[in-house]
């Protein structure tokens, strides 16, 4: 047997937002690397679709709206001890500054920023993260490595996620828990609502990516697998940019 430092065999991993996009690909790829998955999502049908795409046995799925704090806490309390958590659930929100409303800002902050903080809080308080475990937050290049017109609200939520990630990395290092983020550029997933762009706009935008394509969810899943695995045992507090060279 060839030694593989990226293996997830024997690890139990929680993935939120697993019903589509990066979360779905991450759950599937992690199962391919041997992990036992606990996946959550809001949409029962789509979550079930992810669930049935997982390789191996012994996985669990939990339908849950994580913005409901008491449901989130109940969910965490029901978990076994885990080796990894992919704090991934998130939404987009493109509005020029002149159109930002408190409600829309609050709702994107709730899902993208407050849920990851509270999920971590509940996991730590209830001692669900094993010593040597790894938490990965799905952030973005937006707000951390680059900014775009109209993306202000999303950018704010993701800069806050990276701020939280670094604080958590420092504080949880004392418990032997690593915390990192992945920071994707444009990935072809439902969150980016690529249908709202014209083919012409997309072709022009892809020109901004030195590697000449948008990301695939699997490109990000592979970065997440690295951060979950023991291959990254000495890595904590990093923002792993995966963007086809966009921010260069």
């Amino acid at each position: 047997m060839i030694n593989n430092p990226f293996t997830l065999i024997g690890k139990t991993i929680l993935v939120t937002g697993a019903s589509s996009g990066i979360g779905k690909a991450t759950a599937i790829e992690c199962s391919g690397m041997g992990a036992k998955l606990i996946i959550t999502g809001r949409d029962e049908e789509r979550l079930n679709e992810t669930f049935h795409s997982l390789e191996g046995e012994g996985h669990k799925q939990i339908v849950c709206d994580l913005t409901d704090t008491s449901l989130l806490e109940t969910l965490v309390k029901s978990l076994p001890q885990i080796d990894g958590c992919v704090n991934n659930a998130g939404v987009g929100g493109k509005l020029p500054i002149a159109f930002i409303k408190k409600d829309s800002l609050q709702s994107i902050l709730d899902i993208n920023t407050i849920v990851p903080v509270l999920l971590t809080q509940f996991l730590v308080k209830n001692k669900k993260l094993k010593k040597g475990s790894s938490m990965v937050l799905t952030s973005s290049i937006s707000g951390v490595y680059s900014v775009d017109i109209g993306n202000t609200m999303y950018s704010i939520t993701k800069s806050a996620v990276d701020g939280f990630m670094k604080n958590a990395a420092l504080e949880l290092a004392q418990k032997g828990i690593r915390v990192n983020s992945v920071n994707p550029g444009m990935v072809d997933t439902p969150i980016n609502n690529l249908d709202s762009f014209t083919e012409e706009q997309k072709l022009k935008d892809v020109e901004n990516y030195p590697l000449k394509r948008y990301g695939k969810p699997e490109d990000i899943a592979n970065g997440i697998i690295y951060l979950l695995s023991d291959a990254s045992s000495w890595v904590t507090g990093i923002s792993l940019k995966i963007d086809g060279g966009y921010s260069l």
Partner: protein
Amino acid sequence: MITIQDFIEKFGEQFDDTDISLIKPETEFKALEEWSSLIALSVMAMVDEEYDVSLKGDDIRNSKTLEDLYNIVVSRKRNDQ
């Protein structure tokens, strides 16, 4: 009730340096000097806020005149009801 005059006025508010008298139903709005991706996004946000209609990039691309765009908004509004 949505009217083209009302639509033109709200459309015109997205510009800073363009005289609103230059904006008419037959105006080819993407040819206006001030037209930009930010204004396109602002027009989409305005239409969502004022008329509760979601425009796509293709709607902007396929509209030549302001009246074309207005007609898309009106037809979506009607289909919603």
